[in-house]
């Protein structure tokens, strides 16, 4: 697809979508949002860019291949349960250290182990959607 209008829009909205996905991720523990939605929105940003400029170029934007995102996400989620074990609690118990970091978009951020779990979900969903995209567009090019 070669549309100037879409290309101009995509250049602006794609980064915005990534930022929006981060906001969704950070506010997700107590309010609507979270890693799953955040990952989908971020992937949608990349896909929009792909519609405007071609999927190959969109995937080249990423620092890592999609499958590595899945792996990193799985590792983050799996290890987010470990601190609880070290503290003598059951696996995956949420630990909230007494910290509060001001972010200017999503209120004050309280980092805890569930945040890392959510981050893991975010990366896995992001990677999965992009992997589907990568596989299906690859098939189209070489039938």
């Amino acid at each position, binding site marked *: 697809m070669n549309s100037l209008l879409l290309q101009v829009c995509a250049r602006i909205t794609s980064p915005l979508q990534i930022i929006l996905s981060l906001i969704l991720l950070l506010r997700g523990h107590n309010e609507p949002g979270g890693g799953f939605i955040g990952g989908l929105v971020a992937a949608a940003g990349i896909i929009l860019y792909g519609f405007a400029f071609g999927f190959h170029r969109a995937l080249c934007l990423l620092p890592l291949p999609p*499958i*590595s995102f*899945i*792996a*990193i996400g*799985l*590792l983050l989620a*799996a*290890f987010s*349960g470990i601190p*609880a*074990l070290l503290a*003598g*609690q*059951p*696996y*995956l*118990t*949420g630990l909230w250290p007494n910290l509060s970091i001001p972010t200017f978009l999503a209120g004050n951020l309280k980092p805890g182990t569930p945040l890392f779990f959510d981050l893991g979900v975010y990366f896995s969903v992001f990677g999965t959607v992009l992997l589907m995209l990568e596989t299906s567009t690859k098939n189209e090019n070489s039938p």
Partner: protein
Amino acid sequence: MNLLLVLPIFLPLVSAAILLLIPSAKLQRWIHIAACLAHFAASALLLCEVLRKGITASQLGNWPAPFGITFVADTFSAMMVLITGLMGFLVAIYSLDDVSSEHQKRGFYSLYQVLLMGVSGAFLTGDLFNLFVWFEVMLMSSFVLLALGCSRHQLSGGVKYLVLNFLSSSLFLTALGLIYSVTGTLNMADAANILKSSPLGISSMSAAMLLMVSFGIKAGLFPLFAWLPASYHTPPVSVSAIFAALLTKVGVYALVRVFTLIFTIQVDFTHDILIGISLITMLTGVLGAAAQYETRKILSFHIISQIGYMTLGLGFFTEAALAATVFYIIHHIVVKTNLFLIAGAISKLKGTAELKKIGGLYAESPWLALLFLIPAMSLGGIPPLSGFFAKFALVKEGVSLHAWLSVFVALAVGILTLYSMTKIWAEAFWKASPNENGDFGLGDAPDPTPTSSTTPSLPSLPASFWAAITAMAAVTLAISSWPQWLFDLSERAAAELSTPSHYIQAVLHSKQ
């Protein structure tokens, strides 16, 4: 104990992720082996812990019992996780030289780890919906492992496998909906606690039957086993061996868990159905095997008939019969996996597993013949070997319950099993190679080196094949020589299964 309960799931998950990140094929192989060994070690520690402290439970995320997800290990589930770890490790060794580099590139190792994770999760969870999720984890990875490579017979077998298993999962979910509407909980211990007082109503009885059908499909019980022989002979040998070891047994495990813990009120109805189904399963499986001439197909049908023995013990529903079931499952997993690996070795040597096209293996590879004989005779139930003790315990319990029909069928199926095993023995090992008889032209054999069967210069088996096969035969021999310790374990597991109050107590009143 929190740590030990999670490790059999945590380790495969982490290693699956690491394997995705690492591009080097050589490094992947070592990580694959190390991960399986670690999983095995963790499951051994878990069993020790359970033997020392009794039933242990861990409430994930520290949500109290009926609300959160509970992980429980009693002796039965810890034994199942341990045998999963052992088989996972040995088949992993075998897979090093069995799986093509094409498969490795497409993520065989990661999928294998995910499969181990799903199976261990299904054994350890104490929550029905969580059980469904682990089933799906296991099935998704097995779908992909089955279809990797995309040859046409893999695909057509895979489609049947997929559709029937999806049907089974949907029936399982339907049953969950019904159980939730009756009890308001999906925690197995809590549901058992609520359902134990009154006779089953329409909803809970339909849920029980739906669960029986659903787990029956997964276990390969009588009317709906068609997916198993249609698909198990198509993927690479290590994949079908690990499937044969674990997948159907998860179905059996779920049946045992649900029908010893939750639905124990109307035993004369539910468990009598189980007995009937088991008997028909045993017969159809063994008769189906008699008609086959492909090694792995014969073995697939035998899985079905042996599953019948396991659920027969559950159907009797006495403590001794449950102990026999547990013993049977453990013995069967080792033996059947080994037979699949040997079938793989045969087709590696001969280029095909069609019994009519091969022969003369006894002369060419007497060690393989000996190693085949151990699990084959054990499967048939020949006295000094482990299968004899398993069948003996079951039949003895049948005699003391005066279930003469069951005893008769169990013995007859044992003899028919022996017939199939001697068929493989006679066709593959004993008879002369068909090329020498002139039955088949050389052009017929898909052997890459057509002269190999006339001259003794066979393609030799890699060391990893020998290691895995010999280790499994050694496990069988160990069980056969000292059956008492496995019997003690099985009896302990059966004692826990037949007094569900301990399990309920451990889950609902655990400190954490």
